[in-house]
């Protein structure tokens, strides 16, 4: 006995962003048009349908929030769900929709588990309960082969419940497009009519393809689906929808992430002892944390507590866009050990050069940093501070990009106004260098000069061109040449 679960709106449901305020749809480019590939119930009730043009959908609901389909997070989410399904069956097949697969799906052999779960009804309701907990929308079908289960999952609810194979419209069989069209155009609309056709006649027209499909459907031929194998470790990545820039928000997101870990572990009947957490920022920059437990666990709240503690020692340098999780080897769990586990976190950064660590210990973590270049004409945006060295490639990119203009190493955070008396003593070395840029985010128009002040320091000063000055212009010191 096989159970097929078709996740019709997986591209949207896999995102699990429950807090959205608008009607939401996910679109993907198909034949150069943006087409709807998933929609929330609200959008569906406005008449938006899968496969519809985005422009068409907007006609029905102007304020829909639109997301582009992203395959990687969909795949990661379904792979995690396959781990959950492992709890119900040792034969699990999963796939997300692509050019060949019409709908994201999970197929489970449940015959062997019926006894364990005290019968079909109990088993199914347990599965149903789990799935509604995840808020995944799905269509289920039962059959004697995976293909039959899928075919029922594609059918109208009336047939889906307890129909016979022959009642299925042939479009539920997901035959090759051409074969399906030819059959339909020949007046063959239902499976019973198809089964009644002489095999030789079918072979003559479609080769083996339709016969093979029918044999698989009836379980007379191996189903040929790739089966899920429990991975040696838990290894996944959660894309966040909307960047998170504070620890608080991160803790909230992690709660759900760990819930999924727990579901997976209970399905796999396993536990883990180490979990590497990678916070992924823009440009694939990362912050890495290691959560180390003193003993294997599969408890979400334990993980959460450890993570919380660990995070309190970390300052987020940049917004988090995604979270990667990698565990150590999964261990078969011993159920009664749970309460014995204690938690302890440890820094993975023990390898920092010792000197740096000592300076940081003395002066505080924030006191030590790196200056990185950024491609922007405006001096105060031309560089930024970070608590780690830039990766070599990015540094190179910027170095070759910029004309090597004379720039002071030391820039004042807030430029200092120069008194009129002071300015009179300047010796003007060069300038003006005119910088007018950044109109898209505030903007700046300045003339920069290099001057020597009366103590012989080489200063970098500017005058704001945006301010009309009646008489003598105001100058500001912006930097100091080494």
């Amino acid at each position: 006995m096989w159970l097929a679960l078709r996740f019709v709106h997986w591209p949207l449901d896999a995102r699990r962003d429950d807090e959205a305020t608008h009607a939401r749809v996910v679109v993907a480019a198909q034949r150069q048009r943006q087409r709807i590939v998933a929609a929330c119930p609200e959008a569906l009730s406005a008449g938006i349908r899968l496969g519809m043009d985005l422009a068409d959908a907007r006609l029905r609901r102007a304020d829909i929030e639109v997301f582009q389909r992203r395959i990687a997070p969909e795949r990661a989410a379904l792979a995690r769900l396959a781990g959950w399904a492992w709890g119900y069956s040792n034969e699990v097949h999963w796939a997300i929709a692509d050019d060949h697969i019409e709908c994201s799906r999970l197929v489970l052999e449940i015959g062997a588990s019926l006894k364990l779960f005290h019968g079909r009804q109990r088993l199914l309701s347990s599965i149903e309960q789990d799935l509604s907990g995840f808020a995944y929308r799905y269509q289920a079908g039962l059959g004697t082969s995976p293909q039959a289960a899928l075919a029922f999952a594609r059918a109208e609810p009336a047939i889906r419940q307890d129909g016979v194979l022959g009642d299925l419209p042939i479009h539920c069989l997901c035959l090759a497009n051409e074969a399906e069209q030819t059959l339909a155009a020949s007046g063959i609309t239902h499976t019973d009519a198809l089964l009644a056709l002489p095999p030789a006649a079918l072979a003559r027209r479609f080769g083996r393809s339709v016969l093979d499909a029918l044999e698989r459907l009836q379980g007379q031929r191996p189903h040929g689906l790739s089966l899920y194998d429990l991975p040696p470790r838990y290894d996944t990545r959660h894309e966040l929808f909307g960047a998170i820039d504070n620890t608080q928000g991160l803790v909230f997101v992690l709660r759900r992430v760990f819930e999924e870990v727990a579901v997976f572990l209970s399905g796999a009947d396993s536990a883990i002892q180490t979990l590497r957490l990678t916070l992924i920022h823009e440009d694939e920059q990362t912050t890495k944390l290691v959560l180390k437990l003193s003993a294997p666990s599969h408890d979400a709240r334990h993980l959460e507590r450890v993570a919380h503690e660990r995070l309190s020692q970390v300052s987020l340098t940049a917004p988090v866009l995604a979270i990667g999780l990698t565990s150590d080897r999964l261990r078969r769990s011993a159920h009664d050990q749970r309460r014995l586990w204690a938690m302890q976190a440890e820094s993975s950064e023990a390898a920092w050069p010792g000197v740096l660590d000592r300076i940081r210990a003395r002066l505080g973590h924030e006191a030590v940093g790196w200056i990185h270049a950024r491609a922007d004409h405006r001096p105060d945006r031309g560089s930024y501070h970070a608590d780690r060295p830039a990766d070599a490639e990015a540094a190179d990119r910027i170095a070759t990009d910029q004309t090597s203009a004379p720039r002071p190493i030391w820039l004042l955070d807030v430029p200092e106004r120069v008194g009129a008396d002071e300015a009179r003593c300047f010796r003007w070395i060069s300038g003006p260098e005119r910088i007018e840029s950044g109109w898209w985010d505030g903007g700046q128009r300045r003339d920069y000069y290099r001057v020597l002040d009366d103590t012989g320091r080489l200063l970098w000063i500017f005058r704001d061109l945006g301010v009309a000055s009646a008489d003598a212009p105001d100058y500001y010191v912006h930097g100091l040449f080494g």
Partner: protein
Amino acid sequence: MEYSDPIHEDDYAELCCVSNFSFHRGASHPEELITQAAALGYRALALTDECSLAGAVRAWMAAEKHHMKLILGSRFTLQEDVTLIALARNREGYTQLCRLITAARRASDKGGYRLSLADLAGHDLSCCWLLVLPAYAQAPPPALHALLADLVCRYPRSVRLALALHRGPLDALHVERLSKLRRHYGVPIVAVGDVHMHCRSRLVLQNVFTALRRHTTVAAAGTALAPNGERYLRPRADLALLYPAKMRAASCRIADDCVFDLREIEYDYPAELVPAGHTSASHLRKLVEKGAIKRWSNGVLAKVREQIEKELALIDAMGYPHYFLTVHDIVREARARGILCQGRGSSANSVVCYCLGITEVDPGRHELLFERFISESRNEPPDIDVDFEHSRREEIIQYIYAKYGRGRAALAATVIRYRPRSAMRDVGRALGLSADQIDVVAGELSRRADDGTIAEQLAERGVRLDARLLHRMLGLVDTLMGFPRHLSQHVGGFVLSQRPLEELVPVENAAMPDRTIIQWDKDDLEAVGLMKIDVLALGMLSCIRRCFDLIAGHTGRLLSMAGIPAKDSATYAMIQAADTIGVFQIESRAQMTMLPRLKPARFFDLVVEVAIVRPGPIQGGMVHPYLKARENPAQVSYPSEALRGVLARTLGVPIFQEQVMKIAMVAADFTGDEANGLRKSMAAWKKDGGLEPWRERLKSGMRANGYDESFADRIFEQIKGFGSYGFPESHAVSFALLVYVSAYLKCHYPAAFAAALLNSQPMGFYAPAQIVADARAHGVAVRAADVRYSEVESRLESRPGEAAHPDRRAALRLGLDRVKGLSEAAATRIVAARRERGFVDIADLVTRGALDKRARDALARADALAGLAGDRHRAQWQIAAAAVHNDLFADIQPVEDDVALPAPAEGADITADYNSTGLTLRRHPVALMRAELARLGVMSGAAFKRLNHEATAHVAGIVTMRQRPGSAKGVTFVTLEDETATVNVIVRRDVLAQFRVAVLSARLLRVVGVMQRAGAVTHCLAHEIVDETARLGTLQTRSRDFH
């Protein structure tokens, strides 16, 4: 300022400046640059667009206006990444420049260019100044040394180093590096601005361009953006602070040395058409005389003779005879090949064109004005537009290329400019908006609300933008609109020349392979005095020719355009009843509602109909007074006898451009040329202004002739309104001729006309389904596409048992081209195989027709196999079997037991008909649901037409058309079709808001409303609209939306 003036201390000439014709680089129009340079007192400005002279004519015109000295040049970034600027010193230098640009452009795909150091060596640039522009503050790369060494060796006196300073961080270093080069090569330095915009504020747009060119956003473009806005036309005082006087003086001297003016280009039309012993003028006269005898076999009237002499004298004086001979030759060639063609536009004002067979309208029979076509004072070349059959125009184009060679014939360019949506898309992209957000913003923008409202509306639709950013964005979109984006090919404007074109203007590749375009568009050509002939395509000409052929093939009767009897009352009766589906021009919805009111009864009425039933005149309120005057001609009064002469034909309402010209001539004593000047200003005043001087001239002239002030004002206002929609009578006359001919054919040869329309698709307003339905409604027997009988195209068949009826009542056999998915090649093979012998069965058809799977399925689904295989289901089942075995086992027919297949239901058949051929000869789909609709209280379309005005209506039908004419104040028109009639539904704005989705996307609609009747014209004014598309199931229907 004269360039012979001594050079003053603060003089400056800009030698390096790009306009927006350096696409996505320059941020100002050429006109803006010239105007600003003049205002700043520059000694000269060189326009040096990147490998282009596309902006040259515009700059030249602006320079004339502002008495600014313009130098033509171009800049090139060589493959080796060094930059060279070439300036034309004289006429020869200009030719050298054109050749260089042409070579670089032709060596690349459309829109790009390719020039290397090695290529450069193959060009003669001895009459150009050559400026080398080194990159900012960089150590000179080897290529720069190579370029300098090469140039200095070949042109020791005309090479300069160009120094551009923009207040960068390393100006001193840059100057030093250039000085080193100067010393090394002995090449003087000149000051240049490397100008990209006329004023500093365009920096924002220039940044946007940089981002677009790099396929990124301004925020991410980083240091690729210009660091500041200094690359504008700076005041001379600022430049004096920046560049040494010597360098500025050097620039001025170079500017003074460039003496080329576009006026100097000599242009001759190809001369080979003149036979030995003739001059062009005498040959033209001979052809005209010959034509005149043909046109007026009873002798040429004195008035016409006089006109011919006047025209020939003028043509000769202006040096145009070659041009007329060329057009004549092209038209003659088309005739010889049996391709229908007809001149349109202002050439219809010319008797010479009529005699040469270029136009078909006798100008003597209409009040046409030769001045509208050519005039002595106006230094503009004549412009002749000729329509050819759209399916055979390519033959003519190839003839022209073959006759004159590719070096002497090229298409004019069309400058594709930014429009609101494209401007929004590019600005949005550069500002980092997603494609989806851009769509939303563009949608809101098209409604033209103010910023605040737009921001709110955007927020409602989920797009939140910072107010400042939005403001900035809208400003950018505004500026960007009208900017050139790229050059494209003109629809058919050929420029021909006696000498190679590339000596006159650069030639570049078009998108189509083997097409080349010149870098100037039609306005440029006109300004410079180059002549073009428009070789245009017109679907109706193909249709008419096909119709003639079909009639000849079926009845042996040979028709021709000239041979169609005039004043045919049956034809006019049909037109008055608005029974005009398929007829040229008057088949649109607006035209069809107007026909029963205007009741055209003679040819001139058709001319008027063509001219006024268009959005402009309807909006301009011209139609109503004319209708009123027609109902009561006695009431029409004229301000003077003289004006009665001008306006009587159109019952006091000025309808044609020529009439406005005549009014000015008659009432205010304008000369013919002045009147034409007024016409041109009329067309352009909304864009350029410049109508005011004419107001004074017109009013004083009218005062002098005793017209009162208020009348003069009224006339002037009318002229102003006229500007946007005035239609030349000559054009209307040419079109009206096609209206009449096509109406005549539809009236007397409905089967042939319908077949010709089908064979000329796509064209016109109606889909094949409506054309076929209309033919059947007119008693034409239409027969389905069938492999046993159909040709590739639709054709006429005799009805069995009847002799081929001489005129009508022929049956229309649909062609295999109606079968969707069947290629023309496959259809041709089927027809050829059948000619050998008829098909015995499906296997025979598949084998001898060599039909692939796609073709086989297409035929089965279109029910074109009925005679060989039975119904659709059986045909499909059988042909699927033929599939696998046709090649290997062609002779083996495996015996197969009959399989029990259900017969297709009628609904399924109709659906399959539509889906496979776009039409059905069975019942109308709505007929099948009639009983259900009746239960809902829906009446048939025919019943609706019988309702009284204001009666409640309840109709349903398939949506075949949606329109929202600009003239209709937010009203949307929807056409519904059922098995009895088509119903026109009016959806008011408030109703649309309520039923928006249904109105805009449903394929089957049910409408509750009221009847609006005006005589025979009926509309259903909608109150409630229901989407009934679900009833159609998988039936695919097609609607022509907002066309």
